[in-house]
């Protein structure tokens, strides 16, 4: 006879995630959170770091993916490795700081020492081990799969069926659009990450990243205080801006559609800076892409997007969402520097500080609303969250991408329909 402890009620994700509504428990249940860590973060592809964060051999960063602490480090041959942050001897944490530089990795407990490629190269009193002990079998453990696109490094801890390219799907176009603002096609994430405690479920942050509905209300105080942070010209329901559902849970708010409709002005996405003030960058773009294509890129600007499950290309910032518990998350933010654009980068840095992070005039208010929403959904009624704005009115392109109006919830529905497939599929296999 089964005891109560052995009965794990099966969560019916196809019931909790419906086409135009969501069950409130998706944001509060510890069991759902635990399922997500495994099914989405450990069995799926997640962003872990960018190549430019660890430019030299020995540079490393420590990141959390799901419940796991990982070290991304560059070895002497220039390769990037991602290891579990755990000593193979008796389990001590190897790297305590969130970033740094090492010529080798030495465990603080018994000083086992590892090369940058993970090989165990030394340990005190090796002779005391039995004859069958082999240093070759006691190196650092790499993650099961690692792959990169445009310098963005992704990992998959429990192998799944998908290649990274299949996981990214149409979202590669978003990464391409960001890289295409650099005259060399490369970005540098070198300014350091702001880390912001969010008192809300990670999925609320995902949803808010591509929410075109809230800005005039939540950010009215900033729009009133400083117009240059309001890059989008038209936020009315009739706005030409589209939200897009790319499939695989990826979505964006296509500000380029607004910038194009607003005529041929360059740099709306920087708050409308005069191109004459960025001579180095503009010349480098013209040289790299020719005047006509450079002009298009400088009108359209960077993507405003959310890549499933944790990476947001947030205009000239990268944001990463780290789930902590059902009610807590950490949001990481870094400004995007474009290689060959020092004059623009200096401005990007100051704009990032103005808008983003815990003191930012934009994001602090999103954090507050996230907290209020988290507190709200803890109430048991009315049970369902409504997510049906614009439903059934989307335009579907031949490649399957769905377009809708700026204030429609098509982008969030794109996230949730993929979420439902990922979460339900795991149970349907195990049944």
């Amino acid at each position, binding site marked *: 006879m089964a005891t109560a402890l052995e009965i794990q009620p099966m969560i019916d994700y196809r019931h909790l995630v419906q086409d135009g509504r969501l069950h409130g428990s998706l944001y509060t249940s510890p069991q759902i959170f635990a399922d997500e860590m495994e099914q989405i973060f450990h069995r799926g592809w997640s962003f872990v770091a960018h190549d430019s964060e660890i430019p030299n051999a020995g540079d490393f960063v420590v990141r959390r993916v799901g419940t796991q602490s990982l070290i991304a480090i560059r070895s002497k041959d220039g390769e990037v490795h991602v290891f579990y942050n755990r000593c193979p001897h008796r389990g001590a944490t190897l790297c305590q700081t*969130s970033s740094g530089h090492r010529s080798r990795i030495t465990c603080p407990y018994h000083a086992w020492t590892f090369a940058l490629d993970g090989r165990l190269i030394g340990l005190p009193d090796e002779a005391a081990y039995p004859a069958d002990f082999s240093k070759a079998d006691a190196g650092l453990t790499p993650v099961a799969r690692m792959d990169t696109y445009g310098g963005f490094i992704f990992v998959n801890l429990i192998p799944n069926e998908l290649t990274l390219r299949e996981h990214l799907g149409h979202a590669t176009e978003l990464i391409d659009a960001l890289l295409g603002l650099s005259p060399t096609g490369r970005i540098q994430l*070198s*300014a*350091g*990450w*702001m*880390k*912001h*405690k969010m008192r809300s479920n990670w999925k609320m942050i995902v949803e808010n990243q591509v929410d075109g509905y809230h800005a005039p209300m*939540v950010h*009215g*105080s*900033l729009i*009133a*205080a*400083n117009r240059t942070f309001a890059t989008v010209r038209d936020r009315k329901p009739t706005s030409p801006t589209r939200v897009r559902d790319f499939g695989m849970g990826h979505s964006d708010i296509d500000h380029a559609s607004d910038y194009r409709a607003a005529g041929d002005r360059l740099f709306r996405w920087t708050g409308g800076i005069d191109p004459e003030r960025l001579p180095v960058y503009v010349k480098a773009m013209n040289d790299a892409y020719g005047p006509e294509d450079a002009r298009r890129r400088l009108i359209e600007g960077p993507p405003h997007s959310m890549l499933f499950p944790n990476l947001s290309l947030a205009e000239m910032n990268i944001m990463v969402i780290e789930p902590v518990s059902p009610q807590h998350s*950490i949001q990481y*933010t*870094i*400004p995007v520097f474009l290689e060959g654009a020092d004059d623009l980068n*200096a401005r990007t*840095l*100051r704009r*990032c*500080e*103005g808008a983003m*992070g*815990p*003191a930012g*005039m934009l994001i*602090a*208010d999103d*954090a*507050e*609303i996230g907290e209020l929403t988290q507190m709200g959904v803890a109430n048991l009624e009315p049970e369902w969250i409504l997510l049906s704005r614009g439903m059934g009115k989307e335009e579907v392109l031949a490649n399957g991408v769905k377009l809708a109006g700026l204030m429609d919830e098509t982008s969030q529905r794109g996230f949730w329909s993929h979420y439902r497939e990922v979460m339900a599929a795991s149970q349907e296999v195990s049944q």
Partner: protein
Amino acid sequence: MTTATLERTTLSAAAVEQFLYLEARLQDEHRYDEWEALWASEDTLYWVPRRQDADPAREVSYIYDNRARLASRIRQLNTGVRHSQAPQSGLRRLISNIEISENGADVEVQSNFILIESRRANLTTWAGRTTHVLVPAEDGFRIKRKTVVLVNCAEAIDNLAFLV
């Protein structure tokens, strides 16, 4: 040290302390315009770095406000609908370990603070070391530069929408 120098130092130290306490009270009580009026009218910097010894030209800071950006921040708070400070946090801070040095006409002041923030059911402790560069004015001082290095600046921090 002559008696005259000692007297002058003691007096100015008391004046500097009084100025820091005034500033702290205006911040604690969200008296935004009065706080902004403590700043010099141009060429100022309000800086909250993300790590000790950061290079603000290359690294992102939590706050790096020149005079115009500071004015925007105050205008935003004054709208009353800056959600992260509507309602306003309950704040009280203690300032201590004050060290004063003179640098030409400027007065450089280092101090420690502990700040308690009450927001909903949470009490959050903030602490750090502040460096003020003050210029003497007829009625006291004006702030030319203020740097606040939080003890946990390199870790994840909560909303910092009040004046620190």
